[in-house]
């Protein structure tokens, strides 16, 4: 997927998230958390400010909510607290990238150990 495609997918997801709240049978719906497709699972975490984080994983993978919270923490620590980062701009922070890949690696090891 190129940049345009990811922008299109992101905007599509944004509206699907909003529509799923409208169709809820009960009050207090906060949008899609998990989408189970034939070949992958998509976990979505929305922060209180509306930033959405996705993890795409193998079908049936557990404990992805925890990973998403860790990634959110990394985002607040290494991106939002970075004085050179401008809001709403693409993230180009080396420390964030390093820590992100470490977190993913750690999760993979934990998954193998489980």
């Amino acid at each position, binding site marked *: 997927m190129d940049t345009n495609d990811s922008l299109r997918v992101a905007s*599509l997801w944004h509206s699907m998230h909003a529509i799923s709240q409208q*169709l809820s049978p009960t009050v*207090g*719906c906060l949008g899609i958390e*998990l989408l189970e497709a034939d070949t992958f699972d998509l976990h979505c975490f929305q922060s*209180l400010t509306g930033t959405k984080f996705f993890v795409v994983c193998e079908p049936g993978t557990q404990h992805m909510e925890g990973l998403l919270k860790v990634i959110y923490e990394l985002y607040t620590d290494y991106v939002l607290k970075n004085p050179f980062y401008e809001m709403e701009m693409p993230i180009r922070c080396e420390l964030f990238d390093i820590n992100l890949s470490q977190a993913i690696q750690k999760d993979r090891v934990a998954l193998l150990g489980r």
Partner: protein
Amino acid sequence: MQFFGGSDISPSPPAPTASGNNAHMMYVFNRNGVCFLYREWNRPLHTLNAQQDHKLMFGLLFSLKSLTAKMDPTSMDKGNLGVPQLPGQGCSFHSFRTNTYKLSFMETPSGIKIILITHPKTGDLRESLKYIYNLYVEYVVKNPIYTPGAPIRCELFNTSLDQYVRSIS
């Protein structure tokens, strides 16, 4: 005693009761996007009128399907986002979950879409949807006075559907 226990921001709906009042509603669409069956068992919140609600649901499923077809990490040649796809073509999805409900989705080769909305804690319902499709074939398609495409008004289908849905836990 815990005073500030609830760190959960979202109030989760009450757990399903033993009597199986678990399903909220069900939609069946044909391949043209016409809703020819809508059943409602437990739906306290109505945000839209029925027709708009059906349209929105069909649009949601259509878009989610094109999204999953585009995001599929296992195939290389994927078309453009939003191009209509035949039933069975491209990567589809079978359910999604929010904090208040779970939507299970099945599309048959003839393009009929069966959608069941249940409590978020419900397990995998793919087999149940197949069973409901069987009920549809047995009681609706094989009904000699039923004209294809018309809204379903078959008493036997409705009663057996109600009975089956109540048994899903």
